[in-house]
């Protein structure tokens, strides 16, 4: 056997893994430079692997004479348990992939929240619409009041207005409009207001009209919602808040138009 044949035998021992380290390193170095030995190694290595494969365990004693004792049932659990923290750790840094049920739950939550927000927004819109409507009504009322005030001012200062002196003020009639104009009216008792009364022509009983309170200066200008030409008398009394259907106190004044 020549030297290279001996080297090829060493390559076989190297492939099987039975060489001491120093000899293994020498063969490995030789493989880097010798094509023939490298080819021998490439040829034998799969056979060595096959020897290992021959040891694959068979756990079925009923069908295989060379069956072996299987590993304990906890081996797999032990291994899987060991990688779980690693999995959890990786999940913490990797993009999260949500399972379908989580996505569905998230969608449901979003839908519910959206619904709630929608309801809330609708409620807000509704409230704002109401407020807007109320503001419009107030605006209309203010415009009306402003008009009434300007009208009242014009009526009260009109040279041709008819003025009737009463306690704490006067009653003014102008162009079929009727006003109670107080300038020194004391505030009503607590829980009480002033209420106007009118007597229509031909009637025998006073009808309840508007309620009012003077400002801190005792001033109150109250337009009465009637046609002055149809009113025979006007009166004012102190009544409970909200007014009364019949006078419950002695009138502060009663004015009869003649």
């Amino acid at each position, binding site marked *: *056997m020549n030297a290279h044949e*001996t080297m*090829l*035998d*060493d*390559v*076989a*021992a*190297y*492939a*099987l*893994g*039975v*060489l*001491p*380290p120093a000899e*293994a390193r020498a063969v490995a170095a030789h493989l880097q430079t010798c094509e023939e030995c490298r080819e021998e*190694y*490439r*040829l*034998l*290595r*799969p*056979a*060595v*692997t*096959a*020897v*290992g*494969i*021959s*040891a*694959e*365990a*068979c*756990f079925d004693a009923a069908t295989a004479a*060379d069956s*072996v*004792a*299987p*590993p*304990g049932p906890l*081996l*797999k659990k*032990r*291994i*899987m348990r*060991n*990688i*779980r923290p*690693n*999995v959890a750790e*990786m*999940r913490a840094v*990797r993009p999260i992939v949500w399972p379908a049920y989580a996505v569905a739950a998230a969608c449901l939550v979003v839908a519910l929240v959206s619904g709630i927000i929608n309801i809330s927004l609708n409620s807000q819109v509704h409230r704002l619409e109401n407020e807007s409507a109320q503001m419009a009504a107030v605006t209309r009322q203010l415009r009306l009041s402003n008009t009434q005030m300007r009208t009242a001012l014009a009526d009260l200062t009109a040279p041709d207005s008819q003025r009737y002196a009463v306690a704490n003020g006067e009653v003014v009639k102008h162009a079929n409009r009727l006003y109670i104009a107080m300038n020194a009216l004391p505030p009503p008792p607590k829980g009480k207001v002033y209420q106007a009364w009118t007597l229509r022509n031909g009637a025998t009983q006073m009808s309840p009209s508007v309620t009012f309170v003077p400002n801190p200066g005792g001033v109150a200008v109250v337009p009465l919602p009637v046609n002055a030409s149809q009113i025979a008398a006007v009166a004012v009394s102190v009544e409970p808040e909200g007014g009364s259907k019949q006078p419950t106190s002695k009138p502060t004044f009663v004015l009869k138009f003649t």
Partner: protein
Amino acid sequence: MLPSEAKEHCVEDADRLMARVRNRDAAAFEALYDAYHRLVYGVALRMLGDVSAAEDVTQAVFLKIWSSPNLFASGNFSGWVVRMTRNRALDVLRSKSRAHVELSDQQPDDDPIEERAFASLDAAQVRMALKQLPAEQRELIELGFFSGVTHEELARRTGVPLGTVKTRIRSGLRRLRTTLEGTVTAV
């Protein structure tokens, strides 16, 4: 499914499973364990002769697969696992006896030289091929692979000259390869 068909199926799946393991897919790792734990455990048990020690090696090998999946690039996954298992088992033997100290680290886990054509072989086919070897060749090959001793120790145990041991190993491996090539071709 026949065992050989199942084995081929597993081999085809190994690359894909390892790709998923690299992405930290625990389900793929579990599938890999189910497909290859018999091989790992079988090699370890044959080398160590102890169920508990074989289980420890099996666990070490699979945890290594999980922690360092990039050690396997592609090719014969069975071959890679066998080498890794043998090296771990040698570590155990080395810790128990001075007779195995000299064999440390001579079989790299990531040796790229492997033929994918043999990857579909199952244990029964290889055992059959081994039985066709002359007894003196088969004994040296199996003793050399599974006992983890040096060629000198093989010579001492069998009473065969060292040169003859190496020649028989080479002849046996060549014949085994030829037989297996016929098996693969027949499949």
